[in-house]
């Protein structure tokens, strides 16, 4: 019986020659790896030559859906970009919602992989399961909104587009892959990889709905779970449906989850966070936006007209509000909305861009860079005009912003000089997201131990600490978040769960509201293969081990070699605020986590037994001979 919920069709596009081949990965791979970065990790591990430069033409870039993408499973709308990260030299992935994922599946593909690099800009058109490589000369240079509009004029309104903007075209390390004019697969620098291949866009023209094994049963689970969503007083539902992530900004600043002043400040340095949070943001919202068939609809379109700032675009997310706001001591919401729009249009990751601006401000305030270096920009804390200007420069590749900051913090340190290291808050080259280990110490472990360093969409014990776990996950809370011993089991359980969420094509936010056992039910009815919570743990463990093995084979990975800046861990500790006096020991948890995952606590290498237990004998052979 062929597994359902998937199309049994992956496309492999060689951009050197324009040739396309198709493969059915087969039931076994779908069952074991699902899709998204599960199947993606399998394909890259088995097909990409180890040690390749992430920007080498032979390097693979994949855009994959999951078996729940485009189905009745609630928030089944994600696609995931996969590849080796040019920022960290590790495994890279970036997850995104909107409408592109379902459209790709309805156009007849579970995913598409690219190797090679086109001589001249191209785009790839997917319709009726067929892929063609087309000339993108008319699209190169357009921003992401213009690109999508032009493709929809050519292929109809139902066509969905994942593209790079001018930032990706310049092969900038800040580049993201953008769809729906402002949903971003932003992390890991995969927009940079796409740009290096001169691939402007993937255009999916949907035609056939996704067939699942038992449509009625899947619908019934959806209806039952929606009943849970709509139960009075569900805070996660209230948060996402009424506000979206902007609803947590002021609270996160208050309790120390949002890093402030480039990780050196507290709420006392930024007492006006309400001006860039919840009701203030919603006051600019003109209409709500939801990803494909999402009942939460946490996104929105906003309009601001305030002084020099006039913009209509996507509502800034919490990460963006914190990066361009709290991190820069900027409480001017209109300016942040403009920066968000610049990033979306130019195709830049808002986390990396905002953090890079905060880094530059600290360098300026310390006198490491001067007004002469910045071309006259006064990069002082809270100077929103300079923040907008430097973001524009990062987007169009000009001036100090483009030339010095345009590839993120790590590269900027190389361009400014070693004295800038003091302000460089990143992990292995990835700018850190807006969750502070001093508030949720588990994320200090997750930033380092996940195969993609410096990420907040990777699950671990911190989700427990941040009250961001789904109901009925069945893993007890760890009693005291600042007691570092004994967190490994909890973190391992939660991270294995998260790998399945991500590989299935579900949204992390939706899965905070959806009772956990509904996820294996969704998989069972979509795919026609029984999944249980235990099987979820097994599949998640397999995916986690394979992602980690990818890094080890690249020769870049002992998790203990990746260091977080001491400041981020509270060394020295903050003197004020709710996390005053906290210094985090993430190493104890990392070792504990590795042991719980069946990985060597000193090196992160999955043991032979662990790998063989997950049917990863081919990996065991590579790692252990």
């Amino acid at each position: 019986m062929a597994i359902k919920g998937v199309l049994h069709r992956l496309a492999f596009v060689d951009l050197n020659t324009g040739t396309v081949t198709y493969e059915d990965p087969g039931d076994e791979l779908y069952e074991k790896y699902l899709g998204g970065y599960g199947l993606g990790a399998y394909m890259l591990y088995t097909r990409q030559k180890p040690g390749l430069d992430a920007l080498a033409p032979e390097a693979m870039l994949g855009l994959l859906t999951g078996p729940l993408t485009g189905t009745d499973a609630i928030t089944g709308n994600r696609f995931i970009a996969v590849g080796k990260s040019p920022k960290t030299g590790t495994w890279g992935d970036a997850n995104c919602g909107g409408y592109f994922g379902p459209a790709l599946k309805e156009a007849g593909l579970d995913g598409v992989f690219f190797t090679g690099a086109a001589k001249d800009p191209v785009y790839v058109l997917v319709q009726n399961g067929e892929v063609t490589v087309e000339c993108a000369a008319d699209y190169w240079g357009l921003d992401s909104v213009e690109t999508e509009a032009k493709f929809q004029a050519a292929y109809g309104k139902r066509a969905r587009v994942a593209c790079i903007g001018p930032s990706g075209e310049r092969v900038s390390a800040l580049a993201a892959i953008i769809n729906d004019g402002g949903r971003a697969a932003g992390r890991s620098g995969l927009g940079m990889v796409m740009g290096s291949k001169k691939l402007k866009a993937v255009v999916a023209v949907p035609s056939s709905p996704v067939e699942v094994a038992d449509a009625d049963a899947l619908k019934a689970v959806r209806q039952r779970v929606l009943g849970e969503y709509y139960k009075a007083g569900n805070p996660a539902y209230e948060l996402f449906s009424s506000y979206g992530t902007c609803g947590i900004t002021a609270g996160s600043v208050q309790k120390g989850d949002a890093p402030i002043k480039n990780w050196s400040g507290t709420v006392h340095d930024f007492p006006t966070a309400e001006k860039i949070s919840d009701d203030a943001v919603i006051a600019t919202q003109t209409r709500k936006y939801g990803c494909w068939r999402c009942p939460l609809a946490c996104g929105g379109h906003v309009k601001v007209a305030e002084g020099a700032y006039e913009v209509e675009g996507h509502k800034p997310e919490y990460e963006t509000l914190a990066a361009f706001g709290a991190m820069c001591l900027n409480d001017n919401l209109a300016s942040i909305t403009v920066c968000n729009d610049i990033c979306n249009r130019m195709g830049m990751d808002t986390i990396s861009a905002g953090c890079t601006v905060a880094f530059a401000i600290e360098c300026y305030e310390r006198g490491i860079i001067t007004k002469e270096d910045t071309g006259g920009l006064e990069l002082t804390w809270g100077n929103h005009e300079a923040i907008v200007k430097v973001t524009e420069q990062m987007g169009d590749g000009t001036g100090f912003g483009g030339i010095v900051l345009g590839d993120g913090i790590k590269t900027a340190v190389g361009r400014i000089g070693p004295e800038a290291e003091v302000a460089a808050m990143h992990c292995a080259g990835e700018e850190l997201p807006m969750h502070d280990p001093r508030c949720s110490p588990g994320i200090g472990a997750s930033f380092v131990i996940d195969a993609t360093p410096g990420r907040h969409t990777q699950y671990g014990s911190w989700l427990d600490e941040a009250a961001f776990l789904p109901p009925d996950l069945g893993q007890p809370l760890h009693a005291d978040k600042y007691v570092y011993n004994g967190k490994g089991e909890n973190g391992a359980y939660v991270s294995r769960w998260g790998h399945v969420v991500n590989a299935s094509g579900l949204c992390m936010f939706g899965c905070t509201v959806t009772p956990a056992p509904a996820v294996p039910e969704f998989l069972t009815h979509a795919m026609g293969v029984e999944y249980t919570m235990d099987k979820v743990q097994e599949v998640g463990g397999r995916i986690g081990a394979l992602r980690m093995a990818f890094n080890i084979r690249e020769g870049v990975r002992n998790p203990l070699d990746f260091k977080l800046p001491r400041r981020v861990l509270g060394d020295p500790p903050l003197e004020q605020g709710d996390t005053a006096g906290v210094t985090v020991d993430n190493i104890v948890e990392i070792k504990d986590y590795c042991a719980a995952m069946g990985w060597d606590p000193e090196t992160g290498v999955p043991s032979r037994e662990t790998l063989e237990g997950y049917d990863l004998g081919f990996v065991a052979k590579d790692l252990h001979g």
Partner: protein
Amino acid sequence: MSVTVRVPPYWRRHTGRRADVSAEGATVGEALADVVRQHPELGPLLYGDDGELAAGLSVFLNRESITRRDGERTPVSPGDSLMVVLAIAGG
């Protein structure tokens, strides 16, 4: 004694969408009780079955956590501001 209590965004449907509620009381606990008196639907959200502040809630008095002071017994002064924050922190 009047203080301002900022309620979490996701509770504001119980306060007529107002972010700030003016409350009377000599302590944090009394001020919060006055908020519940004005908006009874907040009661089960603020307090657990045991009558203690619900798990996962933090309360800040003029930006400092009341757990670093005297909890709900912490005295308040006119013009003080209280902020109730839920633990939820993703996004």
